[in-house]
């Protein structure tokens, strides 16, 4: 509970300064892909170092979160993803860590957070940033049953909360994200980690 208190809804999200500089990795919130975008063949590693191709999950809607231990908002978002996964609402919930030092680093973070439902998945070689075009973390890709990206959420969200439900419903029902109300970006408060 303490950690949740650390997250506040960015009520002032609209008041946040927009990135002024072209190329600054500053875009945040829901970015629908219209039309849905086929994704390149990517894979990550499980805790034992075995390759897990993303195509493994074809046929099911997938929420693919990309995080790292050095990214404080990513770490703050993980418990909500863990609770979402525990609920098993017909969506495959994947959280892939980009921790450069791999399983030891990422596994340590999951244990510290008491995250038990999410599987430890890794991309220590940082191949996903290029392949999936990720300028910033956390980024969560919403992937339909055909393995296409229907959109992405840049920044942290309370994925287990009521405000994320419309996006998750659309994903589950195979709809596009056009006109779907997005959850707000959550922002860390308190001292720098």
């Amino acid at each position: 509970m303490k950690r949740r208190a650390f997250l506040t809804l960015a009520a002032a999200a609209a008041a946040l300064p927009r990135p002024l500089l072209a190329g600054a990795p500053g875009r945040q919130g829901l970015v629908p892909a219209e039309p849905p975008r086929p994704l390149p063949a990517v894979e990550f590693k499980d805790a034992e170092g075995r390759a897990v191709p993303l195509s493994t999950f074809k046929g099911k809607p997938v929420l693919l979160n990309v995080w790292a231990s050095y990214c404080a908002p990513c770490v703050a978002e993980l418990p909500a993803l863990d609770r979402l996964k525990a609920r098993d609402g017909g969506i495959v919930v994947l959280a892939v860590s980009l921790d450069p030092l791999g399983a030891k680093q990422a596994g340590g973070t999951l244990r510290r957070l008491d995250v038990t439902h999410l599987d430890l998945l890794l991309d220590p070689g940082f191949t996903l940033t290029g392949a999936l075009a990720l300028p910033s973390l956390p980024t969560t890709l919403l992937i339909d049953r055909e393995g296409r990206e229907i959109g992405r959420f840049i920044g942290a969200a309370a994925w287990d909360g009521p405000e994320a439900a419309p996006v998750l419903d659309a994903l589950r029902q195979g709809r596009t994200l056009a006109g779907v109300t997005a959850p707000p970006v959550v922002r860390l408060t308190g001292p720098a980690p």
Partner: protein
Amino acid sequence: MRETTTESPSPAMRASAFLMLLALLLLLAVPATAQTAVTGRFRLDDHDGHRVTQDSYAGKLRLMTFGYTYCPDICPTSLGTMAGALTLLGDAAAQVVPIFVTVDPQRDTAAHLKDYLDAFGPRFVGLTGTARMVDDAAKAFRVRYVIHPPAAGEPDSYVVDHSAGIYIMDRDGAFLAKLPHLMGADEVAERLRPLLK
């Protein structure tokens, strides 16, 4: 005075308008051409508190990026991309120094950088300094940044916008290339490979 604005401008006014237009065009043109003029010179403090310059890493290739570590909402991926590229290079990565230069020296102290960069392995060097030193370094790399005013009552809570990208500097510290921030680790490694001995 109001009426004069409806009259056709005097030759003097026309000339000054022309000069203003010329100045504006020059202003617009300069950043585009200056983009290539990266001198790569800096005088900063490393994360152990040692004063360093571009000559401190003589003989080594450098991968450099500018940014700040305090990211309350989203964090850039460029440092991880650099770490990933070095992993892919294996032993040859010893010829490359990965360097992170903060544009937020107020919060990114040497001690904080040392702690933060730990997550990327022992090779990473963090550079900071006074606001002036950091500003000079940013100018030498044509990096632009804007420190936004802090939130009300929270002097340490502010956002910094900065231009992204990863620089490859040669063994003498001269500019070789600027890679877009969306480049994958594998692509960065490919760009470095021909430069390795």
